[in-house]
């Protein structure tokens, strides 16, 4: 104890000092560990945990504290627990073995009545990236997917993605869960499950069909992040399901849906080629439109791209305002939005033209914003507004931000080529800029002028002359090279100046940059061909200089030019064509937007922003030529309701007993095999209802319980192994002693988690007696060779907790094989029937046994259904004996009398009978009673009283039977809420006990 105090003080001291150096951090870790290991005080632990989180936040390694931290995972203090979670999620991947120790805590928390705790347990459990727990995660997800709380279901949807990234092999199972969750009606779940869908199985578009309309209608109420994801998914979906609304002469006939939507869309009737928009397509557009008003910029952008990709062109204009509004937002938002507008404005100028002034550049904008605005302004330029835009550009050219000024000059160049009316004006303006003091501006102007002159076939010798005059003042190599190229290209227009420029260049050749040198050689060659008289010697000189240049490119070029133009005996056939090669008319460069080809990406995506495909990008498909079947989106109204009920019922009356025999069955029926023993939202109900039932540990361990034990075994082995390893190194000796202590604690927790966490007074038990008699369902005469017999197995049904399980034996007594034997979909009496899987083929004289479940709803009303083969249908019915509607339970005698005391009066029915003497023995009474009804025997301390207990399958109401012998009479008493069942049982017991025989 003293030790602990000292170290606690230590900690406090060290914590006060700032621990920037690693060494100090180490001492901190040490003292934290000491306190964590030895202190019992919550507040100290919490303080230490906060320090550890501080270390994690700084990116310091705190993984060696793992064993000390992880034992606090079960702490009562919720903040401490949360911080431990943070730690666990961060380091579990590195310390997989130790992380397993915490699993049991989460498994227990998954059944907590508080939904927040259930959800956070699932969150952490699924965030622990340890492959060995994949099956546990899978179970937990399946269970949570049917939870009553939408918040927990939402967490389950998130967990799906985590599990998928941990183990992609689970894909098939996860898709099943996704399919189930997609049907969920809660707005809370919708966004998360669609996210999971996008991550796990974006190609399974068929899962969306049935939920399409629901998603459209829920969309407005979904939280904003979910909206973004759903809208992007629906955009892709719509592109595969609807035909294009963008016909050449698109005219819209929306009259047919007027009545349905009474929309205010303008009415355009065109008989020639009617395009009728699918109502579902319209539904999507209509339901997303209000979201343009969202405060979340991502939502607005998502809706905008949806309209861009899906809406008829004339409806596009509604997104403009909203997009322009986003420009008021943060710098980063502006950047992304402007990029998208840039792409849009290339294709549809009209959309943004009225808002041109919103794209005017401010001096305070960041450079990349400025360039984007410039891009858009250039795209928007047309004959009408070009003068305004050019005036604006003039201001930009003078900007202090020179990179931006240069970009403006480029933009002017683009405007000049696009709009022929202003080409001359622009050219003159650019020439004026040549006398600018800033080099970059001049250089950029020269480059742009060069491009412009190439596109301009008219006379421009005066501009070239002007440039030749400026040549001496221009120092930027690119600009000099451009002027030289212009000289050479148009040397015939400036016959006097060009040779002079060459003369000057010959003097400075050695001091020029490489690109300039190349152009000098180029100019020399061209002049040699056109004006060899004046320039022959100069060319020779320059070629000689080039021959000995340091740069091999220039040496190469010189050699090539010399061979090409200077005639000598070795020169080949090429020199004849020299003039045609060098002076060939060159195509003018096309000045176009950098955003020209961006529209290959879906707007609003990362790939669009980067203009390169990001991983995980899903291509938007082209419109189908013919619309796929629309009816796939039709939803039968009944079905989802039924489903909803089923889910509710399932999770409400879920109990361990339900899973008892399910180990042998397939795992496809999720939900029913999971053990959720207390339900969540309905805590108040729990008190009035019998406590959930659970199987005894060790003796009857089945299915999930068995699984848990297997896991426990794994963990134990792991733990022991760890300790063996640890104890080898003596420095950890003390550590190990403590850890061994934890082992005990943990094992205790484990057992606790597995078996005793709900203190139960009622225990489900296996049936005492299973009658072998089968009843006939279908005679072979009426069944045209197919005969069927059924038998009550008296086992808890694996298909649903409220079902009675039946075994069906089908045999074929005809001489040909029967095909496709199944139960038809419609059940006439409304019972919920779990059908057996269709039997594809039954050979002659063969028989097959299948199991099925029927929810009789605690009544003896017969279940009628159709047994079908490939050719025929037979109406059959199963009439259950009242005793089969029960399941046995065990309880102590005291509990029995206590419960019996609660069920007096109306709930009690009793009768006095005279027993046959041969029936009086305890054995025969027991046998008689349990053969009539599926109930369990309660050990009795009194000799003459026999007690039996059961519960009804559907509602779980208690049925208590006692038989008191008073020679020769016997009093049968039945106590149950279900009085009808009580009286029917009583009658049957009476006949059974008065009759002799076995």
């Amino acid at each position, binding site marked *: 104890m003293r030790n602990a105090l000292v170290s606690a003080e230590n900690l406090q001291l060290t914590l006060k000092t700032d621990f920037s150096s690693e060494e100090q951090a180490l001492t901190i870790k040490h003292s934290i560990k000491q306190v964590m290991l030895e202190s019992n005080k919550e507040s100290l632990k919490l303080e230490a945990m906060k320090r550890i989180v501080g270390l994690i936040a700084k*990116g310091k390694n705190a993984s060696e504290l793992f064993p000390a931290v992880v034992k606090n995972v079960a702490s009562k203090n919720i903040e401490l627990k949360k911080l431990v979670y943070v730690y666990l999620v961060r380091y579990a991947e590195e310390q997989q073995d130790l992380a397993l120790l915490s699993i049991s805590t989460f498994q227990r928390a998954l059944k907590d009545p508080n*939904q927040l705790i259930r959800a956070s347990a699932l969150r952490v459990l699924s965030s622990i990236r340890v492959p060995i727990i994949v099956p546990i995660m899978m179970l937990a997800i399946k269970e949570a997917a049917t939870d009553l709380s939408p918040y927990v279901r939402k967490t389950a949807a*998130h967990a799906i993605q985590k599990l998928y990234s941990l183990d992609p092999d689970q894909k098939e199972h996860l898709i099943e869960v996704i399919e189930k969750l997609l049907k969920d009606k809660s707005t809370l779940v919708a966004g998360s499950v669609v996210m999971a869908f996008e991550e796990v199985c974006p190609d399974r578009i068929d899962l969306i069909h049935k939920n399409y309309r629901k998603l459209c209608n829920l969309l407005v109420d979904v939280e904003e992040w979910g909206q973004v994801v759903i809208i992007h998914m629906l955009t892709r979906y719509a592109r595969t399901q609807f035909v294009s609304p963008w016909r050449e002469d698109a005219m819209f006939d929306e009259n047919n849906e007027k009545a349905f939507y009474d929309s205010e869309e303008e009415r355009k009737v065109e008989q020639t080629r009617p395009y009728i928009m699918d109502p579902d397509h319209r539904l999507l557009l209509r339901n997303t439109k209000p979201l343009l*008003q969202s405060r979340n910029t991502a939502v607005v952008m998502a809706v905008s791209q949806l309209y861009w990709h899906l809406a008829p062109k004339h409806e596009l204009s509604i997104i403009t305002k909203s997009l322009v509004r986003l420009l*008021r937002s943060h710098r*980063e938002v502006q950047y992304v939005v402007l990029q998208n507008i840039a792409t849009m404005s290339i294709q549809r100028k009209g959309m943004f033209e009225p808002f041109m002034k919103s794209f005017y550049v*401010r001096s305070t904008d*960041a450079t990349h914003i400025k360039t984007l605005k410039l891009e858009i302004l250039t795209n928007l330029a047309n004959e009408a507004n070009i003068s305004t835009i050019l005036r604006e550009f003039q*201001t930009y050219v003078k900007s202090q931000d020179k990179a931006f000024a240069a970009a403006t000059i480029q933009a002017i160049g683009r405007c000049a080529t696009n709009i022929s009316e202003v080409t001359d004006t622009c050219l003159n303006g650019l020439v004026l800029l040549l006398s600018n003091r800033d080099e970059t501006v001049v250089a950029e102007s020269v480059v742009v002028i060069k491009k412009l002159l190439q596109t301009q076939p008219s006379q421009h010798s005066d501009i070239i002359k002007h440039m030749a005059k400026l040549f001496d003042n221009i120092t930027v190599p690119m600009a000099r090279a451009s002027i030289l190229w212009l000289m050479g290209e148009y040397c015939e227009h400036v016959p006097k100046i060009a040779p002079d420029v060459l003369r000057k260049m010959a003097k400075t050749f050695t001091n020029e940059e490489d690109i300039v040198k190349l152009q000098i050689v180029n100019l020399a060659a061209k002049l040699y061909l056109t004006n060899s008289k004046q320039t022959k010697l100069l060319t020779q000189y320059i070629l000689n200089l080039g021959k000995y240049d340091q740069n091999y490119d220039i040496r190469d070029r010189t050699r090539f030019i010399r061979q090409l133009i200077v005639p000598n005996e070795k020169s080949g056939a090429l020199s004849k064509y020299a003039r045609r090669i060098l002076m060939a008319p060159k195509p003018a460069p096309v000045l176009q937007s950098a955003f020209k080809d961006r529209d290959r990406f879906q707007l609003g995506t990362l790939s669009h922003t980067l203009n390169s495909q990001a991983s*995980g990008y899903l291509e938007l498909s082209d419109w189908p030529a013919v619309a796929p079947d629309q009816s796939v989106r039709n939803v039968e109204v009944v079905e989802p309701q039924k489903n909803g009920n089923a889910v509710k019922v399932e999770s409400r009356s879920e109990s361990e007993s339900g899973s008892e025999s399910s180990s042998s069955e397939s795992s496809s029926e999720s939900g029913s095999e999971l053990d959720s023993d207390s339900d969540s939202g309905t805590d108040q109900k729990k008190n009035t209802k019998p406590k959930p039932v659970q199987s005894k540990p060790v003796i009857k361990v089945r299915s999930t319980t068995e699984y848990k034990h297997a896991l426990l075994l794994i963990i134990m082995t792991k733990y022991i192994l760890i300790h063996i390893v640890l104890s080898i190194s003596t420095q950890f000796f003390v550590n190990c002693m403590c850890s061994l202590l934890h082992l005990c604690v943990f094992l205790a927790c484990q057992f606790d988690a597995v078996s005793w966490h709900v203190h139960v007074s009622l225990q489900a038990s296996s049936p005492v007696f299973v009658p072998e008699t089968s009843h006939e369902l279908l005679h072979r005469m009426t069944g045209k060779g197919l005969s069927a017999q059924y038998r009550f197995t008296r086992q808890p049904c694996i298909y649903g907790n409220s079902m009675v399980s039946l075994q069906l034996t089908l045999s074929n007594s005809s001489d040909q094989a029967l095909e496709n034997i199944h139960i038809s979909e419609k059940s006439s009496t409304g019972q919920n029937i779990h059908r057996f899987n269709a039997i594809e083929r039954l050979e002659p004289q063969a028989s097959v046994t299948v199991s099925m479940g029927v929810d009789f709803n605690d009544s003896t009303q017969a279940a009628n259904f159709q047994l079908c083969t490939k050719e025929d249908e037979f109406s059959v019915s199963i009439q259950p004996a009242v005793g089969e509607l029960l399941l046995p339970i065990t309880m102590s005698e005291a509990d029995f009398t206590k419960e019996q005391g609660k069920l007096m009066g109306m709930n009690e029915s009793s009768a006095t009978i005279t027993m046959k003497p041969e029936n009086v023995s305890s054995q025969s009474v027991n046998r008689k009673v349990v053969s009539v009804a599926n109930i369990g025997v309660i050990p009795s301390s009194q000799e003459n009283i026999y007690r039996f207990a059961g519960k009804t399958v559907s509602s779980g109401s208690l049925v208590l039977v006692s038989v008191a012998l008073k020679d020769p009479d016997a009093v049968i008493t039945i106590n149950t809420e279900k009085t009808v069942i009580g009286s029917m049982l009583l009658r049957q017991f009476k006949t059974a006990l008065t009759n002799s025989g076995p």
Partner: protein
Amino acid sequence: MIHSLFLVNASGDIFLEKHWKSVVSRSVCDYFFEALERATEPENVPPVIPTPHHFLINVLRHRIYFVAVIQSEVPPLFVIEFLHRVVDTFQDYFGVCSEAAIKDNVVVVYELLEEMLDNGFPLATESNILKELIKPPTILRTVVNTITGSTNVGEQLPTGQLSVVPWRRTGVKYTNNEAYFDVVEEIDAIIDKSGSTITAEIQGVIDACVKLTGMPDLTLSFMNPRLLDDVSFHPCVRFKRWEAERILSFIPPDGNFRLLSYHVSSQNLVAIPVYVKHNISFREGSSQGRFELTLGPKQTMGKAVESVLVSSQLPRGVLNANLSPSQGTYTFDPVTKLLSWDVGKINPQKLPSLKGSVSLQTGASKPDENPTINIQFKIQQLAISGLKVNRLDMYGEKYKPFKGIKYMTKAGKFQVRT
């Protein structure tokens, strides 16, 4: 979605990291630092930076870069919007969002980030839900917690999380029931050399501070709703009513929130409340330049123009400024060349002016362009667009709340080119 988050301070140090999936080494930020070095101004760092295996999306606020690491396709605005929401939450919790505040509250920050994202997908971003999950740190609570050992973390699922009104919690109680609305309008304008308006638009917001008991249902109507050209709402506003009747009908969140932001149609003429007379000239060859500024009110509907602040980025060649203001104070930073003049209130009788000379570096050539002047100002009791609230009604609760509406006009991005 969002893999990890790194917080980088102005000097380029990572001072906090958080991972929602597997740990991403902080060396991934090297690409960001490269971009940071290349950028001339802090704002010029591109918001989206591709690296070989990841994508970095960053936002810059309060001189802190929030760098999110993304591994696969995701709408960039999704991440950007979320990061801004994180900053807003920090500001809400700690008053300021500074490196010091984050470091001091690192545990709360971690708890918040943990709640806001699950596996990289936003979980709870609504401030009122977060506040129920994790209580904001206050001095009193810190003291109480150390004594009693209680915690900042709520034990129950916030009521808002599941209800149809996720923005409001149930069981709100106040002794004084009050609802205040601030109509704040900002003028964005570019004025050219000659004083004529190149572009001007009005952006407005209605910020509310509502402290009402129970579940009140409010309606707010305007005298002239037609003025509003484009609006975006807090999720609480019923869109259908707005479409049909142009009435704002909503169950308000508890506390401060932004009810509405709007844009006044650009077709309307915008009144410009101030004018600037300027005479800035540099002469070729001389190392001196003249600098004269005079401000005056214009179209202010009789209201005073207050808190005027003029700032201007002078050309790089300027060495120093030697000016004398007729009122207020001015500063000139010779390193960043930023001139700022805190004018205060404009007195229409005696117009404020700033006169003097600026000295240029010897030998430096005359700047080609005169500097742009940015102006900030405030006008109380006036919505420049003419928007007026008609009435505010409350339904669903019995008591009588105290109501208040305040108007204000501010300069947004108000620039004068000289």
